[in-house]
């Protein structure tokens, strides 16, 4: 199983506009030109997808070749002499611009894109001062597709949106309707209102695809861009909050090189507003901290806040309690004992370049859309085999998943063992491991986990002739009672089979918190909660005793799934107290929270970089220069793997804590354009088993948190496990962090028959 990226690239030399350039065999002329700061105009080219080649703007002249060459898709050859600017090319490009301007509505004055429009820029660049041609204009009304609107009259048919929807987000909602001048873009899945189409709108070079909510509310030049990182999930994607008069109007990103899911793009109105300095509440908070034994917090906090909590622990001896981060920390530690490195090896870029991907223990499209996008990229670009292992099927993954392997909820340890066995049995492994593998009772495990041996055979077979594998592991296994052993089993895949393993952090900054804080279990005594219900509660979404800023009201760094420490800045003003004020009152002494950035622990892989010195940009070739990458440290090895414990399956009514798409936390709940459905979603089978009807209100308790939800039948679901969203539980949300599958007793509320 060698890695395809190990093959040595062949260097080629060529001349572009008299400048000697060198590139790698396989690169296109345009890529090499951009690397060498040579400008070739383009309209339809989008760096992050495959060349579209619909605009023909990028034509160049290659000496010795008849006709014009499309530089975006033509691979450069050694010794080629290329001209990118001459009068013939200029005329060619000018004619293309004249044709783009046929009947293009002259409504730049009101168009959302005005000021950042590719068509405007290129029309000016090629001196097209009038509309030279015209044609009969068909009736093409504006279409409202939910999150985004489409104006066919403005569309220039560059097809970027279609490519993004297919190659990147994988919703495959947009299609081209070919028809000469009356060609349009179709939304074939309009009823599903994918928020991921925001990504398609982001790449639109004109004002044809725009956010419905933003449309006509502000102009591009009026908005201040605040560079930030998305705080909804652990991908911590790059984004810019666009602000005017202390209001976030929209979120944009560097759509040329990076991606953003629908929640990141449309979920920006979660600031803790109208907060002033409440001296009394602050004094009470300091008093509560004085008496507290525990600080319980959700790990949706910045690295700096985590460090403040850790310093307070060192100072006052608190127990730091954060269930999901603690589980993740324990898992990561056990994992590192096998791999010998404190961090997992994988990252998203490598995931998108994989030829074989195994997803386990996560409903990934809901838990971390960016991981799903990268799986989709691998599927579309490298025809990757994707095995999706989970107790609940996901219809939205169907177009990328090549093999769905369903296992019994609760049997994750057995699944990990089977997976390890299947993928390692043909590889030479150390003796101890071999013995462990030989001792596995495969027949029994297969029966217990409900994974057929033939399914595993098929999986092994499908990966046989491939190279470059990834394993995506999700939050289901971190809180499993046998998490440590699962971690070790999966660690073998990275250690021995060279898998690119991504352990998806369960919350935004679970990775950062697990590295910075020494986490404990709660003890008897007063608890101060930070975004969690405690005896005294600090909250960034109201409901608490003292207000705290939301993530878009504070500056700091987050640790992303890519093991990258990324900076985020203040988009909205905040008038209240922050955690640093409390820390200063308790004996720490730093003026600003970001003074802690350079104090982040070096022995955990952080750098001693000042916050203001952190870079935050993508270069012309799309290389990410945001913050810095954590350096994995050596970990003490302990490769002893315990025997697989007998599997305790879950019987009866089982619900799976899983937020609906676009929803992650109580912060996303406040975003008014995101899907606000709060139903318990189950299959017809679940309804029959639980004697439920669509629309019944039922009550149940998980981890001591009482739920009361309307049950809804989702025809796309199968099996007997229902999906229970947790994002709307406010301060109780973070309490729900034990094993995600739970057996519950349903009680009908209200309409008794």
């Amino acid at each position, binding site marked *: 199983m060698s890695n395809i990226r190990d093959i040595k690239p062949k260097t080629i030399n060529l001349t572009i506009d008299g400048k000697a350039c060198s590139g790698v065999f396989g690169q296109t002329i345009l890529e090499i030109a951009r690397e060498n700061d040579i400008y070739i105009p383009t309209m339809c080219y989008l760096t992050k997808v495959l060349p579209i080649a619909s605009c023909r703007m990028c034509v160049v002249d290659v000496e010795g070749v008849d006709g014009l060459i499309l530089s975006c898709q033509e691979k450069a050859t050694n010794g080629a002499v290329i001209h990118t600017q001459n009068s013939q090319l200029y005329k060619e490009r000018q004619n293309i611009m004249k044709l783009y301007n046929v009947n293009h509505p002259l409504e730049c*004055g*009101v168009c959302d894109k*005005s000021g950042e429009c590719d068509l405007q820029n290129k029309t000016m660049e090629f001196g097209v001062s009038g509309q030279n041609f015209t044609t009969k204009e068909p009736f093409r009304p*504006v279409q409202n597709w939910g999150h985004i609107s489409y104006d066919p009259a403005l569309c220039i048919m560059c097809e970027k949106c279609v490519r993004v929807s297919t190659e990147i987000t994988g919703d495959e909602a947009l299609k081209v309707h070919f028809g000469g001048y009356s060609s349009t873009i179709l939304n074939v899945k309009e009823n599903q209102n994918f928020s991921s189409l925001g990504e398609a709108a982001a790449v639109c070079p004109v004002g044809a695809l725009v956010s419905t909510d933003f*449309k*006509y*509310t502000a102009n591009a030049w*009026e908005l201040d861009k605040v560079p930030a990182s998305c705080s909804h999930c652990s991908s911590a994607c790059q984004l810019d909050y666009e602000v005017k008069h202390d209001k976030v109007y929209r979120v944009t990103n560097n759509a040329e090189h990076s991606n953003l899911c629908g929640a990141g793009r449309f979920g920006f109105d979660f600031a803790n507003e109208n907060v002033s300095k409440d001296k009394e509440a602050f004094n009470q908070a300091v008093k509560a901290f004085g008496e507290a034994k525990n600080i319980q917090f959700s790990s949706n906090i910045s690295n700096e806040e985590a460090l403040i909590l850790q310093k307070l622990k060192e100072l006052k001896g608190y127990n730091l309690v954060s269930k999901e981060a603690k589980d993740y920390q324990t898992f990561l530690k056990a994992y590192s004992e096998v791999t010998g490195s404190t961090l997992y090896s994988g990252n998203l870029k490598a995931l998108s370049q994989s030829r074989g991907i195994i997803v386990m223990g996560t409903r990934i499209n809901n838990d971390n859309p960016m991981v799903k996008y990268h799986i989709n990229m691998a599927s579309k670009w490298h025809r990757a085999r994707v095995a999706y292992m989970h107790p609940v099927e996901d219809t939205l993954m169907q177009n990328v998943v090549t093999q769905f392997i369903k296992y019994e909820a609760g049997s994750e340890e057995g699944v990990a063992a089977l997976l390890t066995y299947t993928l390692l049995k043909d590889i030479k492994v150390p003796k101890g491991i071999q013995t462990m593998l030989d001792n596995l009772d495969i027949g029994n495990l297969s029966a217990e986990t409900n994974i057929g041996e033939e399914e595993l055979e098929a999986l092994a077979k499908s990966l046989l002739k491939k190279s470059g594998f990834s394993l995506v592991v999700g939050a289901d296994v971190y809180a499993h009672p046998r998490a440590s052993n699962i971690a070790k089993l999966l660690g073998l895949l990275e250690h021995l089979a060279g898998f690119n393993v991504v352990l998806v952090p369960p919350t935004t900054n679970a990775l950062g918190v697990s590295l910075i804080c020494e986490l404990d279990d709660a003890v008897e005594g007063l608890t101060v909660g930070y975004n969690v219900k405690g005896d005294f509660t600090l909250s960034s979404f109201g409901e608490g005793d003292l207000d705290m800023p939301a993530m878009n009201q504070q500056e700091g760094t987050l640790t992303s799934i890519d093991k990258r420490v990324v900076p985020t800045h203040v988009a909205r003003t905040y008038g209240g107290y922050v955690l640093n004020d409390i820390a200063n009152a308790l004996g720490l002494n730093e003026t600003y929270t970001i003074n802690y950035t350079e104090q982040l622990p070096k022995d955990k892989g952080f750098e001693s970089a000042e916050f203001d010195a952190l870079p935050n940009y993508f270069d012309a070739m799309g290389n990410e220069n945001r913050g810095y990458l954590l350096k994995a440290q050596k970990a003490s090895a302990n490769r002893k793997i315990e025997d697989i414990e007998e599997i305790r399956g879950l019987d009866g009514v089982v619900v799976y804590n899983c937020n609906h798409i676009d929803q992650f936390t109580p912060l996303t709940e406040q975003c008014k354009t995101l899907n606000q459905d709060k139903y318990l979603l189950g299959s017809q089978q679940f309804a029959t088993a639980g004697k439920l009807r669509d629309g019944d209100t039922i009550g149940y308790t998980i981890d001591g948190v009482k739920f009361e939800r309307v049950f809804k039948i989702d025809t796309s679901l199968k099996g007997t496990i229902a999906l229970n969203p947790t994002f709307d539980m406010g301060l109780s949300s973070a309490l729900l962090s034990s094993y995600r599958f739970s057996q519950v007793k349903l009680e009908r509320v209200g309409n008794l028959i």
Partner: protein
Amino acid sequence: MSLEQFKNRNVGTQNYKKLDLSHSPSSGWGEFKQVVSRTFKPELFVGLWVTLREMGNALLGGKMHTTQYPFEKLPISPRYRAIHEMLRLMESGNYRCIGCGLCEKICISNCISMETRYDENQRKEVSKYTINFGRCIFCGYCAEVCPELAIVHGQRYETASEQRASFSLFEDMLTPIDKLNLQQEYQGFGAISPNADDNIKKTPLAY
């Protein structure tokens, strides 16, 4: 350019009145006679007669020259930059503003603030528009940049009020729909006054 045209004193026929200055006395006796004659001649009443005649004309003949401010106002130059006005389209009565936001952007004292939205007719609607006249320096850039001649400087120069807010709302500045027929087209930034031609005269003096 030569100086010739400036030296040309041929001013044509103008209705200038020349003063009759031929009677200046040259001797002491002459001066004495002038004083005595001016003192005892009834020329005083000639002057007073003019006053009485004009008073009679004004009060009885209806030839009043006084502008009865504030009941009457003199027209001012179109170049004058007074409180802004928002004009309507003559044909439809819709306001002209398309909400492009250029005035807000160009405003050097940051006093224009606007909000727009997508309305039911798929048009950009101006949902809020205010000018903070405490900050406005009446530079006229907003009127100059407006692509639709929607925001212009009007003739309303009396800007004393109990509240600045009395001027600053979109509705206050907008031409009332029932006075649409009275709406004056803005001549543009730097326009000349309507009777500018009449006021032009060639000066008899060289400079």
